[in-house]
């Protein structure tokens, strides 16, 4: 905030009066100053600072007003991000979708494994009976595989929601002018549990073309 603006200077008559008084005091420097002289200096100093103080007051007012307008603008922009909608609806909805996916895949896997175990454990010498059991179990496997269609639809919904959230977070970062420095600081502020997970847990399956294959691992051993 700058206070060095035109018009902030004391008027010339005050300056002249101050110079005169200063000269007068220098001439009488060996003698003690009277109370009247001290009051006179104080009055002159105060009056000479008045224009400057008025200018500072006006500058502060202008600066505060611009800060207020900026905050007001940010409030409108943040309202557009609709953070409450994300936390109240979109994230809980995603959680439900993910739970449903876990349940569906677990259910399907168990059904398929049950069938496989049933087939592996068939103890009959009758070929027709054997064929019938295998056929029934294969049909159950086909039915269980329908989970892929349902979970695929749920995953698509989640991806769409994540994209919306990403878009809104990017918007917020742009509004707040968040740079790499802010992001690095946020990284440093990860809590102990998150740090532990980051250090000790792996990131899960590698994508196609990433990571090393079993042969490369075997070579390490």
């Amino acid at each position, binding site marked *: 905030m700058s206070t060095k603006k035109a018009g902030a200077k004391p008027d010339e008559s005050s300056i002249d009066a101050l110079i005169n008084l200063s000269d007068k005091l220098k001439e009488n420097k060996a003698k003690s100053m009277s109370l009247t002289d001290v009051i006179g200096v104080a009055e002159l100093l105060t009056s000479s600072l008045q224009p400057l103080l008025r200018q500072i007051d006006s500058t502060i007012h202008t600066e505060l007003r611009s800060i207020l307008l900026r905050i007001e603008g940010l409030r409108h922009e943040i309202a557009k991000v609709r953070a409450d909608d994300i936390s109240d609806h979109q994230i809980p909805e995603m959680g439900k979708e993910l739970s449903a996916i876990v349940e569906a895949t677990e259910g399907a896997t168990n059904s398929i494994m049950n069938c496989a175990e049933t087939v592996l454990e068939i103890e009959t010498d009758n070929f027709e009976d054997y064929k019938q059991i295998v056929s029934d179990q294969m049909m159950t496997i086909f039915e269980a595989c329908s989970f892929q269609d349902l979970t695929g639809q749920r995953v698509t919904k989640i991806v769409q929601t994540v994209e919306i959230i990403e878009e809104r977070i990017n918007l917020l970062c742009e509004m707040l002018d968040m740079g790499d420095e802010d992001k690095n600081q946020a990284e440093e502020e990860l809590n102990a549990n998150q740090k532990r997970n980051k250090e000790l847990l792996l990131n899960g399956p590698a994508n196609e073309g990433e990571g090393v294959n079993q042969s490369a691992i075997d070579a*390490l051993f």
Partner: protein
Amino acid sequence: MALDVSMPILIVDDYATMIRIIRNLLKQVGFTNVDDAADGTQALERIGKKKYDLIISDWNMEPMTGYELLKQVRASSETARTPFIMVTAESKTENVIAAKKAGVNNYIVKPFNAQTLKGKIDAVFGE
């Protein structure tokens, strides 16, 4: 240590489905004496009560990871030489090296089949 199909094996994984898959793969190649645990902490409890000749563990588990379990197993004089195979979906070289330095005997990347599992067990037991 010679390979014995009746040897006690401990599978450690937080996914019941994965435990079931490994159990069936082991059964397919002849191993039937199999116990399981849902994470490192539970595995240590099992190991404290029973001697296992082979531990097959996932890496990503809470509250104790497979890597932490491996280090604890190696730190104990009773289990320091127990064969330990790490099974994980992640295959970054640095993780494999970290596990090797911690004393893992072999490392399998998911998904895998019965032959791969048998091959690693054979390799660990020098068959």
